[in-house]
């Protein structure tokens, strides 16, 4: 056993030794140790290097607020985590721990050169030092800063763990299982409330775990904790440990992150690593206690310099003395008790330095009894020691005069600057804070949620006061839930309550400008940085924070906020409440992405919508592309074909004979009701009154601003029934828009809207032989050109299935779209494909569909339009029912900007050499020789190689495009300028001869 472990002390299991590695070296600890407590038990304080200056650092706390002791942990293959708090992570056999931010080794680190160059890295250095010359930023400054500064490295392997997520509803949620939380839980549960009690530690007890000598109602503190937890469980209270309340959201929703496996050597593979709980509580009790503040003085960050309360935790909870010879420096009574506990465990206390001139007489008596030197009215002005503190510089202070220094040797320096109530979660609720002059800290004021704050979290001190407050708050929440509750009254013996004062940085007889007096350890922000920020004009605390980065590290200023505020307030000459506090935001402690992600990863990240025919496409080697949430067959490559070859073949086959295409993703909306024709007249630009049942029409949908929103073919099945199709991506949006107008503008219309997208499988047959393939399967319909002309719709049977058959074309060839019930989609597809073989039927995908429609100049909304295109701009004026009194967008089309000359209009482009294919999105200019930045007059919206046209074709939106027919325009590319001629948008069969049977 190492000389720092005290046998018989602490809550670790001395009979269960555990071995882990730190930077490859084997380290022994006990079950119940954290990485930090085990390292300290082995005399190791140096645990990492700091963010900016690479200064040697050790654990300064014993809890989740730790800013320094961040390590990399490896829990087996793929399971690497950077920035694990050594003060929180429990050890187990085989855990691999590595120090961070050092090269080549922790004790000798090249990056520490930054420390010597600290003048360069002062407040606002990002904004000043590296501003000039500008060209140096990318190549010199940024790489240098990135290499030099930073925390741990990201894991490189995929995370093999899984994470869970759950909801929980509870009457009372109590956050923090220290004395206040336990008393609150007991009171509320005894009153019959349903209670959930959570704590981030592996066990309940909170500060009582560090106070074993306290006696509560004649029961020793640790026994009282055990007894209380047992009673809570008996009362049905859900007690959750290793569970951090990370955020407090609206209407009493609290996010909890429960860690389930990180403390286990061989976790069950079925157990998630972490579980995110979304808790909805009727009442919340915040019992998170208080965090100890450091004192701010030169060298307050050396390994071995630690919070006194944390040293007390290490001895009492882990049985670890943090050193052999300690100096205490404090402005609060609490540190004296840490000194006494350590002295009683065998550590020499070289001195208690108290900044107050007259500390409590009882404390002085206790110290004197132990032979401890007391230096009241003194300050600390510096420390020495390269990788561990070896001496402290102590000076007397009289008024504003700092007297002569004395050097006192030590191997640890325990400090306390008093305590800060933990207000993070309360602040998440937008509850307001009030400055408390007596305690020199912010306390909760107006509550924004149904909650109570109990104990040290609202500035109370001492176990008895906190227990009784917890009981009161437990009773209060139970009563608000209609229960009869009675708060027990607790008496506590050996209660070590006390008081203290708050400081800005401690006074010094040395040059304060050279002091490395840290306020924010994790971001390496010193008192000098804060004062510099104020000198350079920062007035608001929010500006000071951003300029210096104080409180912006992953610990969110848990230890630095009040010290930073005190210093900024002093520098500004404005009292603290006028300076204000920066905002705390969730999460309370760093939380893994995995916990937030939960089940939503891999194939569960986003749904993939598949059509009823998707499986056939997969079996037949389709390449896919995502279209909104759908995956669609993109093209069907044959052996060795690339996309270009496959698409070329599919296009030719379709125009030569027949192609088959899965159009099931088209949005479909059934518009039904006595007023459906009136509704259609109002929604779409086109006139619908005269469209007879059995006929179909291209429909254009605008917004009331006059811009194109969607389009699709719409068939009238009966006087009161329309089959509306939308773009694949627009289906939900269109239905939403229709519902909006129907419900809120025209509630008088008797119309029903139903999404039928997934009820129908839609198969498109296109090409001169399309009818020959289809006709044998059709029952109950005369398919002659006369009886069933282009733009017809009919209800019939196809392949034995009930069907809605459209004769329409998105290719310029004779085309049919067969809608059959989704379950019949694949069967019908296979029948048609089999029958089509004698016509060399060719399945094609979305790319060929795009080429074929572009050859005909058919637009795709969202590709050839962008939300600023009118029907006229797109060459679709013919689709406007000009005689209609109103439709959505009619008034918008008359807006001055929409009728103005020179708008961007959709035109065709042919490159001059007949070979170059333009890039979609490429910008167009009129004069390629003009100076940069050039005036851009439009962009290419669609561009393909067209076999039918025998050359590449493109569509573009071009300023005043309709008046530029035949003109040459230019498309500048990185390596050359491409010339193109403005044309119409129909590149194939402009007369529409091929639509005829």
């Amino acid at each position, binding site marked *: 056993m190492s000389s720092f472990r005290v046998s018989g002390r602490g809550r670790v299991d001395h009979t269960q030794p555990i071995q882990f590695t730190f930077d490859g070296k084997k380290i022994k600890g006990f079950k119940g140790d954290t990485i930090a407590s085990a390292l300290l038990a082995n005399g190791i304080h140096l645990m990492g290097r700091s963010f900016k200056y690479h200064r040697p650092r050790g654990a300064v706390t014993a809890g989740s607020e730790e800013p320094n002791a961040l390590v990399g942990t490896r829990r087996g293959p793929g399971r690497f985590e950077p920035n694990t708090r050594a003060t929180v992570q429990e050890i187990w056999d085989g855990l691999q721990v590595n120090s961070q931010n050092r090269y080549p080794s922790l004790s000798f680190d090249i990056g520490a050169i930054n420390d010597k160059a600290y003048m360069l890295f002062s407040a606002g250095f990002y904004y000043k030092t590296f501003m000039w010359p500008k060209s140096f930023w990318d190549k010199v400054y940024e790489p240098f800063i990135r290499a030099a500064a930073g925390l741990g490295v990201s894991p490189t392997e995929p995370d093999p763990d899984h994470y869970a997520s759950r909801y929980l509803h509870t009457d009372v949620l109590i956050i923090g299982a220290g004395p206040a939380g336990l008393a609150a839980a007991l009171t509320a549960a005894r009153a019959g409330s349903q209670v959930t009690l959570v704590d981030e530690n592996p066990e309940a007890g909170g500060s009582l775990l560090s106070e074993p000598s306290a006696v509560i109602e004649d029961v020793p503190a640790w026994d009282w904790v055990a007894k209380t937890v047992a009673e809570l469980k008996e009362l049905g209270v859900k007690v959750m440990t290793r569970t951090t309340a990370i955020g407090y*959201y*609206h*209407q009493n*929703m609290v996010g909890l992150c429960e860690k389930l496996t990180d403390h286990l050597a061989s976790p069950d593979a079925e157990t998630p690593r972490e579980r995110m709980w*979304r808790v*909805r509580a009727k009442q919340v009790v915040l019992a998170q206690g208080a965090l100890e503040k450091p004192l701010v003085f030169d060298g307050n960050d050396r390994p071995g310099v630690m919070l006194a309360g944390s040293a007390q935790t290490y001895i009492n909870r882990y049985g670890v003395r943090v050193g052999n010879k300690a100096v205490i420096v404090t402005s609060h009574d609490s540190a004296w008790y840490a000194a006494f506990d350590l002295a009683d465990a065998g550590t020499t206390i070289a001195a208690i330095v108290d900044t107050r001139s007259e500390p409590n007489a009882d404390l002085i008596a206790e110290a004197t009894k132990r032979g401890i030197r007391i230096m009241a009215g003194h300050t600390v002005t510096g420390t020495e020691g390269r990788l561990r503190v070896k001496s402290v510089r102590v000076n007397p202070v009289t008024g504003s005069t700092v007297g002569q220094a004395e050097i006192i040797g030590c191997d640890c320096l325990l400090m306390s600057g008093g305590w800060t109530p933990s207000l993070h979660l309360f602040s998440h609720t*937008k509850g307001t804070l009030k400055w408390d002059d007596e305690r020199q800290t912010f306390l909760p004021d107006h509550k*924004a949620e149904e909650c109570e704050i109990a104990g040290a979290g609202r500035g109370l001190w001492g176990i008895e006061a906190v227990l009784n407050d917890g009981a009161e708050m437990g009773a209060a929440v139970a009563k608000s839930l209609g229960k009869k509750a009675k708060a027990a009254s607790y008496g506590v013996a050996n209660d070590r309550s006390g008081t203290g004062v708050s400081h800005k940085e401690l006074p010094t007889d040395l040059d304060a400008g050279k002091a490395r007096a840290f306020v924010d350890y994790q971001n390496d922000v010193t008192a000098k940085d804060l004062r510099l920020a104020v000198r350079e004009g920062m007035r608001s605390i929010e500006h000071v924070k951003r300029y210096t980065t104080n409180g912006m590290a992953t610990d969110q200023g848990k230890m630095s906020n009040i010290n930073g505020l005190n210093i900024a307030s002093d520098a500004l000459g404005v009292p603290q409440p006028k300076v204000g506090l920066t905002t705390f935001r969730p999460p309370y402690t760093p939380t893994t992405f995995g916990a937030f992600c939960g089940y939503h990863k891999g194939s569960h990240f986003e749904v993939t919508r598949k059509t009823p025919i998707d499986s056939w496409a997969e079996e037949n080697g389709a390449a896919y592309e995502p279209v909104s949430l759908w995956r669609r067959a993109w093209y069907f490559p044959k052996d060795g074909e690339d996309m270009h070859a496959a698409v070329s073949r599919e296009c030719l086959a379709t125009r030569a004979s027949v192609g088959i295409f899965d159009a099931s993703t088209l949005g479909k909306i059934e518009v039904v009701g006595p007023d459906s024709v009136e509704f259609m007249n109002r929604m779409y630009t086109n006139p619908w009154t005269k469209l007879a049942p059995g006929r179909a029409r291209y429909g254009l949908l605008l917004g*009331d*601003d006059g811009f194109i929103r969607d389009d699709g073919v719409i068939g009238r099945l009966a006087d009161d029934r329309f089959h509306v199709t939308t773009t694949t991506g627009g289906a939900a949006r269109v239905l*939403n828009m229709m*519902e*909006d107008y129907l*419900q*809120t*503008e025209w*509630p008088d219309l008797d119309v029903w809207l139903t999404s039928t997208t997934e009820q129908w499988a839609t198969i498109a047959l296109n090409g001169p032989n399309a009818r020959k393939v289809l006709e044998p399967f059709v029952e109950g319909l005369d398919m002659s050109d006369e009886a069933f002309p282009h733009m017809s719709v009919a209800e019939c049977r196809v392949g034995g299935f009930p069907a809605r058959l459209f004769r329409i074309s998105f290719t310029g060839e004779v085309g049919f779209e067969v809608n059959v019930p989704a379950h019949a989609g694949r069967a019908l597809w296979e029948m048609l494909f089999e029958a089509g073989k004698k016509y060399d039927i060719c399945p094609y995908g979305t790319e060929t569909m795009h080429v074929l429609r572009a050859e005909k100049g058919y637009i795709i909304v969202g590709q050839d339009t962008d939300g600023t295109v009118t029907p006229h701009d797109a060459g679709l004026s013919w689709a406007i029912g000009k005689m209609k*009194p*109103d439709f959505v967008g*009619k*008034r*918008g089309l*008359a*807006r*001055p900007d929409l009728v103005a000359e020179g708008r961007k209009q959709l035109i065709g482009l042919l490159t001059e050499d007949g070979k170059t294919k333009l890039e979609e999105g490429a910008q167009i200019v009129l004069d390629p020789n003009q100076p940069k930045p050039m005036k851009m007059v439009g962009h290419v919206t669609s561009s393909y190689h067209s076999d039918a046209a025998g050359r590449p074709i493109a569509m573009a939106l071009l300023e005043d495009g309709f008046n530029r027919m035949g003109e040459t325009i230019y498309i500048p590319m990185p390596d050359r300028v491409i010339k193109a001629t403005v044309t119409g948008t129909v590149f194939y069969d402009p007369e529409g001869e091929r639509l005829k049977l």
Partner: protein
Amino acid sequence: MLLIHCPYCNQTLPELEFTYAGEAHIARPADPSSVSDEEWRDFLFIRTNVKGPHYERWRHFHGCGRYFNAVRDTVSDRFLITYKTDDPRPELSKLLEKSK
């Protein structure tokens, strides 16, 4: 996550079931052709964008599908009331009194 009361379902349900639908009580003019460019511009684009109680529309998208109106404080993100689309616009002073 907010809990929102749907006045049609008469249930208070998680925010995930609802979608926001812009400012409320902006009626489309009955005869758009008769309004001036300025009036039409205001109908399309001009919104109050208040800091504080805001009359707005929501839709119970993953529920009954109905649009309804609400008053929500844009500072605290708290709903003061939700009501049916054909209910009259509630008076702010009474709402604020009630919420106190």
